[in-house]
């Protein structure tokens, strides 16, 4: 299997996660809850794939998100690329196989991304406490879900890559 095919496999896995999450949000609307776990689609590729081509599945997922949301064009493409760069910067500073480190980094990256979207969509509401309190509630719930789910999702992606004959662990020792 070529490197591009492997990256497409990663994209398809994350696209399924993205659709599943959209479906979950659909059923959570009567309870006034909405989950934003964008870091979930970026963290594994950034921390475990030692190739700059790892950005390809991230940008494809960003395009998928742009089509699903009424954001200004390019908001997700730039936001996801920045989140990928942030995670890549931390790959040698954290213990990637430690579940808590992984989850905390994902939560931090996700919180920054939510802050970026909040400022982008503020439309003059920046000074309103109601705006920030509503985002804070969503951020709290999303962070809790993300913290619990990131290690599992990274394991799933890793085992999927092992099944197609690619061990991302082999390239980890190189800086």
């Amino acid at each position, binding site marked *: 299997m070529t490197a591009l095919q492997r990256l497409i496999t990663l994209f398809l896995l994350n696209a399924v996660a993205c659709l599943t999450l959209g479906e979950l949000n659909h059923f959570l609307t009567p309870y006034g809850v909405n989950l934003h776990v964008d870091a979930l689609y970026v963290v594994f590729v950034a921390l475990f794939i030692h190739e*700059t081509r790892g950005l390809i599945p991230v940008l494809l997922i960003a*395009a998928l998100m742009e089509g699903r949301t009424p954001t200004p064009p390019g908001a997700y493409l730039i936001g996801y690329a920045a989140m990928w760069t942030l995670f890549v910067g931390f790959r040698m500073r954290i213990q990637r196989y430690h579940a808590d480190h992984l989850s905390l980094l994902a939560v931090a990256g996700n919180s920054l991304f939510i802050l970026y979207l*909040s400022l982008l*969509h503020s439309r003059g509401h920046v000074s309103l406490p109601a705006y920030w309190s509503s985002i804070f509630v969503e951020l709290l719930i999303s962070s809790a879900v993300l913290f619990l789910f990131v290690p599992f999702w990274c394991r799933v992606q890793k085992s999927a890559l092992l099944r197609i004959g690619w061990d991302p662990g082999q390239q980890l020792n190189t800086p």
Partner: protein
Amino acid sequence: MPRNLSYQSKAIIILIVVVIGWLLLPGFLKRWSQPVFATFNAPSAISISYLRDLQNYWELRSQSKGRLIESAIELARGNAALSLSHQRIDTLMRENRAWEEFFNLPPEPDYRFEVARVVQRDLNAWWQTLVIRKGTHHGIRPGQAVVFTGGVVGRVYSANHSTAVVELLSSPRFRSAAHFEGDRRPVEFTGRINHGLRPASGQVSTVPADITVSIERPLRLMSSRLGGIFPDGLVLGYVYHLDPTPDGLFQRGTVRLDPRLLELREVAVLVPLDPSP
């Protein structure tokens, strides 16, 4: 890219290239990108929606015959009542047309109801939207009104070939002319920032100072033709409390919206029969 650069430095350079590349991209390509991404998204969203329908079908198949017969009887009763009100509406419309001709008035705009299934609901602090399973192929265009049995849902924000995005009336970007039931004076309805874990609400402003409401006697807020989007008399919500504005000329208050807005499965788009050029 130089080989002696670290992986992290390469990542930063790539990010800068992505940002500059996007900024330098011509405006028409940026605007074009979103509908293209949405079109690529549509098959997956529609497939999931059909799967949901299939799930509902099998759920209904598991109901007992007795329950289905009961439902059929209820439906027959409902149909009989609707048939009677349909006849009454026909008579009223004929009468209305006769008066319009008599007074030489311009006719009221007429609509076709395009019923569509809700594919996806996405309600958060930034946007409150629904994706429906019909689009430009069915005559749906941005700006058209969307309704359900409880009144106004919102308006079409964008439309693709087979799907459309509907902005809910609870969305902070939503704004419309309205009036209270039994009072023709126009007021302004706007969506607002809705807190998570709470039912959706809107806001009414420029309410004349002589209008009074209370918890026991709330007022119904209706849509107005003045906005040019909605026909007159569709329910927007209920107002239980009004506060005077600092200048004392007007009042403003919170509009409680129908809680069913958060669990809509089917809506109708009002497609004008004689669209203005």
